[in-house]
């Protein structure tokens, strides 16, 4: 369980996150929604150790993880994707995935020089896994392509793919759906569900696509102006006046003629 208690993050005088308190239950898929600029990404960055909070605490399974560096959190099983894709542009798509798993013995120079056989074995296993993930994401034809040459949506898929390379405990997804084709997004949703059910991943996802959120998340947290506005099931949220006013709106006013 991830517990965020009274986290503040200020930029100069601006309070991007202003006292956010929330819980993400182990094994759940929790949605995080809210208007643009509500502080969702900033909160993610605080949890994932990219930004240090102005004040407040974040704990994971009771352990204080506030301010730990991202690589440390990764080793504790906390993964995240980026809203704006962060691919390794000059490496191939497949290498982008193969680099992910932690504690590869080949990442030590000593082994790279003197235990080459062991590395070869590990690499073969990694390669197989990476190819499976790519196939799943329908971009296996691009495995030798430089990741920098992918289309916007393909990069998003690659972001997601990285989280599938390891056994994570908690995965934070920052708008993986934005820019991804809806049909494919359906498949991605299936994958998330499967990872959640079969492997027990906990997910927390920022998303603006209510259908997608509705399909996956038991709990939805709504943020606005740096705080949690409300929390509930998708139906409760959709019915909440404040949420409609601040975030959902009432649909298109002008229809095309």
């Amino acid at each position: 369980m991830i517990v965020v208690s009274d986290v503040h993050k200020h930029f100069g005088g601006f309070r991007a996150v202003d006292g956010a308190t929330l819980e993400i239950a182990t094994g759940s898929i929790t949605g995080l929604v809210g208007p643009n600029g509500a502080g969702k990404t900033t909160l993610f960055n605080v949890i994932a150790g990219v930004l240090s909070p102005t004040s407040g605490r974040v704990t994971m399974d009771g352990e204080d993880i506030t301010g730990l560096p991202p690589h440390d959190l990764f080793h504790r099983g906390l993964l995240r994707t980026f809203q704006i894709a962060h691919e390794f542009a000059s490496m191939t798509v497949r290498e982008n995935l193969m680099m992910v798993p932690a504690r590869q013995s080949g990442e030590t120079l000593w082994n790279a020089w003197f235990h080459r056989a062991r590395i070869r074995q590990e690499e073969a296993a990694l390669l197989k896994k990476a190819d499976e993930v790519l196939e799943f994401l329908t971009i296996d034809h691009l495995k030798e392509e430089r990741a920098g040459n992918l289309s916007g949506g393909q990069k998003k898929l690659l972001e997601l793919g990285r989280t599938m390379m390891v056994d994570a405990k908690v995965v934070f997804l920052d708008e993986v759906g934005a820019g991804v084709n809806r049909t494919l997004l359906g498949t991605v949703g299936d994958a998330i569900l499967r990872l959640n059910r079969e492997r027990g991943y906990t997910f927390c996802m920022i998303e603006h696509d209510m259908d997608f959120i509705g399909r996956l998340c038991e709990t939805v947290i709504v943020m606005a102006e740096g705080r949690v506005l409300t929390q509930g099931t998708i139906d409760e949220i959709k019915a909440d006046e404040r949420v409609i006013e601040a975030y959902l709106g009432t649909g298109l006013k002008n229809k095309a003629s």
Partner: protein
Amino acid sequence: MSGSGYGDRGNKDRSITRPGGGTMRVGTASGVHPLPRDDTAPFLIGERMTGGYGKGADILHDCTIGVDPGEIAVIVGPNGAGKSTAMKAVFGMLDLRGGAVRLEGEDITALSPQDRVARGMAFVPQTSNIFTSMTVEENLEMGAFLRRDDIRGTMAQVYDLFPILKDKRRQAAGELSGGQRQQVAVGRALMTQPRVLMLDEPTAGVSPIVMDELFDRIIEVARTGISILMVEQNARQALEIADKGYVLVQGSNAFTGTGADLLADDDVRRSFLGG
């Protein structure tokens, strides 16, 4: 760009910094003849475009997209289908190996992007579409760079459209949230008072309320006689307001029709619109 090798590893895609000139340009030199002039053709059309990045393989194959004044044309398709590429091609940021781009019947295939801006075309790219180090207001001013008249009116309209921007007008655009940046980007394009507005996934990452608002505005803008050409992954909403819809698959036109037609087509819905 993959072929040139001058790049930074990990450099962002700067394929649009390619004014004029290029390796393969349609015209007398390459031996491809401009297509015959056709007065019934749409106001802006990229016709039978074929081409790719740098010396790499073709990404577009005989792809055609077009739009008429006051019309909204929407391009949908799977990731990597070549939608963004097609937009860039229409805006002249890509070297075509075949086909032509015509505005008001005139062949503009050889024009540089900034000349196209001068002809009344505006484009909001999918990524890095704002001046991060400049304030929101300066971003808008830069949108109006080629205009010599008073821009205050237009700016007020943009602020009306996206009220949050007015609050943040003195803030560096790079400090905005994802959705806010998107709004700045569209605002900047509107500042040119274009005749054609090209948008590459303008609603990616914006909240539902802003998306609706944005679509509303796009309709309004279209009603003033401006042509709108946009790529969308929020395809259902987009096609609802579209006069024309194009489905691209692997660089070619797979389906073309009115927005309603496409929405009604089972195949299209299942394969591209998420059921």
